């Protein structure tokens, strides 16, 4: 996996960063834990408002993983659309226990429940693609 230097606050991190948007606290914790164990930094958001708050800080991000069905003013599909408009090179993976993959702007759809190994493989693949795009066009995203 490619590595990049990123900063996540007062402590420095040298890991790819994933924004995880999930409204179920236990699912969010378990998913984040799997990703951290696999070597990623994870920003956790409970809904699209929190996700957008994190996005607007300019925090470096390599991937967004979002649940589709969430409370609040925007579901995961709408969030994916907003992100694709503002940061078109930022890959997005959708997670859902429902078969809603028909019309979306995400790069990947993962049905729940997912195998942790499959999740990590998907993340590695998407993050790798993002690095290749950044290398080709450093100002993109």
């Amino acid at each position, binding site marked *: 996996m490619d590595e990049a230097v990123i900063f996540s606050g*007062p402590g420095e991190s040298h890991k790819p960063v994933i924004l995880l948007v999930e409204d179920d606290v*236990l699912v969010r*914790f378990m998913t*984040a834990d799997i990703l951290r164990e696999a070597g990623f930094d994870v920003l*956790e958001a409970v809904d699209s408002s*929190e996700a*957008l*708050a994190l996005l607007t800080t300019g925090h470096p991000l390599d991937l967004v993983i979002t649940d589709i069905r969430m409370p609040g003013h925007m579901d995961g599909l709408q969030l994916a659309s*907003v992100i694709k408009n*503002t940061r078109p090179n930022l890959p997005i993976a959708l997670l859902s226990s429902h078969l809603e993959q028909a019309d979306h702007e995400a790069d990947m759809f993962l049905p729940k429940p997912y195998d942790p190994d499959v999740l990590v493989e998907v993340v590695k693949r998407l993050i790798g693609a993002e690095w290749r795009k950044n290398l080709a066009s450093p100002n993109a995203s």
Partner: protein
Amino acid sequence: MAQELGESQRLIVVDGDVLVRHVISDYLRTCGYVVIEAATTDEASVVLDDSAIAIDAALCDADAPGSQSAFQLRAWALQRRPEIQIILAGSVETAANKAAQLCEEGPHLRRPYDPQSVVEYIKRIIGSRPADRQSNA
């Protein structure tokens, strides 16, 4: 709360502001804790109500949103999970200092950075947040 190097302890951080919650949680992870993030007292209740989830301490914003107040959450948790240390913080400064204390007492995986830098960082990112963050995203 002293712990051998390499052993992880689990904390829950409860704060309704994602920027504060993330930075405090990240700080605690830096010194070796496993951290569960909860955005509301309701999310914290779900975690604390599950006795299968081992929790050593909870660091909770005194103004955390939810159907019960942080003080009600603490009273409820003290009855249900008396082994869990419930720490209430009334400000970002207090939260950072309490997190630093936990790091002093905890796993010591890495030397934590100065809690004042955590406070300054939180204030900086909150200050840079657009007034209407949703329309600017």
